[in-house]
């Protein structure tokens, strides 16, 4: 029996030239575990919202279909952990769902505890602030409120895109546990953790058409090229990439140059608390150093301290010069944040890249030639008049890198630049950084991705509890077993 389906759907976003979907049909049977794959912007999320009935009921998008079947009871897990809750406390959030379902008040506390237990959350007191939870815990809480709806179908819209590896594992493990008797409809491009649950894959093309559907083995074997083009992290994507490209990790010897960064007895603070301490470390030009470690080990604080955005103490030399003598750190180093949107300060892609040069009052001719070069290098030429917020997630990331690096600063600090990116964008960013490094820049990059450490880094700094416990060339870094 079909639990959710659409027949001959036509759908168009207002202001867009073409239809997102035309004559689109899809049906999903009860109990199926379906994974929907496709390139970014192909309408996966929209499709999920149609199948759940959110479009057109809640989100007003013009659409037409011969027939739509919406499941009788369903729950929806969204991407952004901070944008799914409307109440400040854990118990209140689940109670919100129970109130909507008119569950009597007396039963609520027990229900809340039981749903929390099902997703593996146990609090001493359920009246805990949601803001104190980690991303993985927040998503599991969201899952608990989904369970409170007693759904037949659960829609999952990239629920782990904003989570670190630990959080991702927690969330998928929970979904596997609770999803046994339910229909699951999943969108995700990092699929190594869920692929064993899924029994059918639907591969969407760029124009919102179904390229292929079927059991996963068939898709993975028969449509590899399509998966690659769509930027899907299918199993073995790294092997395929490395077969075609071999990142060159040799370091050009630089003579008589002081290290780009010298740290000795250096501490970084948040407020008054010392978060990270480094006895001694150097970063030389031409090196690509990956900073790794658990959450809360002090990786981001280290980067912020190097950029002088938080308090620091100790010796810190930049290109042999005491950092206290540096007045404008942006001259010496570029910084790329995790969320590129926070970095945009102008209204067009072109202005964004030109921004720093204009601050320096350079000649307009020089600015225009440098900006064009940069836009070309990062493949953003066609977007130059658009607003930064209109770009796709991959383009936004490339723009933030382009805008930060326009001054050719010799030092690059990056906080998880490949975070949440699909495979295609990840490789594009890594290759571009590789070229910047070869021109003689020093790169310091926080990452969770062991593959990046293994194949692109030249050196590894491992932090644990705010201490640098390992500082070795990447070739000597022990290969960790890949997450199962």
């Amino acid at each position, binding site marked *: 029996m079909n639990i959710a389906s659409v027949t001959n759907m036509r759908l168009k976003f207002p202001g867009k030239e073409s239809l997102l979907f035309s004559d689109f049909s899809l049906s999903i049977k009860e109990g199926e575990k379906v994974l929907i794959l496709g390139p970014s912007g192909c309408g996966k999320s929209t499709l999920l*919202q149609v199948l*759940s009935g*959110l479009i057109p*009921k*809640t*989100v007003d998008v013009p659409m037409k279909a011969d027939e739509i079947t919406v499941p009788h009871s369903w*729950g*929806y897990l*969204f991407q*952004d952990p*901070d*944008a*799914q*809750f*409307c*109440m*400040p*406390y854990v*118990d*209140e959030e689940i*109670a*919100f*769902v*129970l*109130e*909507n*379902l*008119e*569950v*009597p*008040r007396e039963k*609520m506390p027990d229900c809340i505890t039981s749903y929390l237990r099902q997703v593996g959350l146990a609090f001493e007191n359920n009246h805990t602030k949601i*803001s104190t939870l980690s991303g993985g815990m927040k998503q599991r809480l969201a899952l608990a*409120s989904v369970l409170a*709806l007693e759904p037949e179908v659960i829609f999952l819209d990239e629920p782990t895109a904003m989570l670190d590896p630990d959080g991702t594992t927690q969330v998928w493990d929970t979904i596997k546990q609770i999803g046994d008797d339910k229909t699951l409809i999943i969108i995700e491009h990092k699929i190594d953790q869920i692929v064993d649950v899924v029994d059918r894959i639907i591969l969407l093309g760029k124009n919102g058409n179904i390229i292929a559907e079927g059991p996963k083995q068939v898709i993975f074997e028969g449509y590899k090229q399509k998966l690659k083009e769509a930027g899907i992290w299918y199993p073995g994507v790294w092997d395929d990439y490395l077969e075609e490209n071999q990142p060159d990790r040799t370091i050009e010897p630089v003579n008589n140059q002081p290290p780009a960064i010298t740290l000795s007895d250096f501490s970084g603070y948040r407020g008054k608390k010392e978060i990270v301490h480094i006895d001694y470390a150097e970063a030389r030009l031409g090196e690509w150093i990956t900073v790794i470690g658990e959450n809360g080990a002090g990786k981001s604080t280290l980067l*912020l301290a190097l*950029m002088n*955005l938080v308090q620091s103490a100790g010796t810190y030399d930049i290109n042999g010069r005491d950092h206290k003598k540096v007045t*404008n*750190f*942006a*001259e010496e180093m*570029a*910084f790329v*944040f995790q*969320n590129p*949107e*926070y*970095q*945009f*300060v102008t209204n067009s892609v072109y202005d964004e890249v030109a*921004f*720093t040069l204009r*601050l320096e009052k350079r000649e307009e001719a020089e600015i225009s030639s440098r900006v064009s070069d940069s836009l070309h290098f990062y493949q953003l030429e066609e977007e130059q008049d658009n607003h930064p*917020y209109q770009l796709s997630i991959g383009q936004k990331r490339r723009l933030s890198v382009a*805008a*930060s690096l326009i001054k050719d600063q010799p030092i690059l600090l990056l906080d998880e630049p490949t975070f949440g990116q699909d495979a295609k964008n990840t490789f594009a960013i890594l290759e571009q950084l590789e070229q910047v490094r070869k021109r003689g820049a020093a790169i310091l990059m926080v990452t969770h991705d062991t593959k990046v450490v293994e194949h692109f880094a030249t050196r590894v700094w491992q932090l644990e509890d705010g201490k640098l416990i390992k500082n070795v060339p990447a070739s000597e870094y022990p290969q960790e077993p890949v997450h199962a």
Partner: protein
Amino acid sequence: MDFSHQETWLHHINPSLKLLILVVLFIQILMIHNINFLLNELIGMLILYLFFTGHPSKRLVLISLPFLLIFLTSSTSMIFFGKGETTWLHWGLVHITEESFTRGLHLGFRGIVFAVLGVVFALTTRPVFLFYSLMQQLKLKPKFAYSFMAAVRLLPLMAEEMQTLNHALKVRGVQRKKGITGFYHKLKSYSIPLLSQSIRRAHRIAVAMEAKRFSEAKSRTYYYRLGFSKYDGLFLIYLLGVTMLAYYMAVHFPYFSTTDVRYL
């Protein structure tokens, strides 16, 4: 940001009732023209603020700093430029008289009483309880109540974003500019990203709320049941007591000889 505090009897008052009583009190205070009466009322309200909000005294002192500003701004212009007959000081435009002085003080005290009452309400009322109570006692539509509660949740997120944005601007080499143009630039570079991010968040939260069947619920049950208790009576008695005592003391033991600050 830590904002922990102890619960006091003021926290247990029904929030809707507390709100209504305060509105009535505001109007009553507007009609007081006897500075002695007003000063006594102020003392009565300060007692609530200083001893019964359950917040640490350091925080209370910090919050009360703006009170001083309110007092100065609302009293000085009246003191310096107000009309009056008994001149104390005449210097250019500044003309201080006994009448303008007491009237200025009166205005200043009134400003502080309003501020103290507002802050006492804010410090002792959880927004969530206020909206639950408004739904239950004053029949506010859930649509509005929950929207407000969701919005309250967005505020700390915005504070965090502001910090990140501040970092981002520094990273891009923006040096702080001074003066009005600097302020304008700052306003522009903060408000647009913050607003656009908030609009997007708000939209996402709205969709998430719908996905939890918010508008399908014809009637709803409530996790928190807010009723009335002896604390409501206590609050009412305290305020009535303070008002009567303030009036009695003002009549029998005045600080100022003026009993009506209005200029007739």
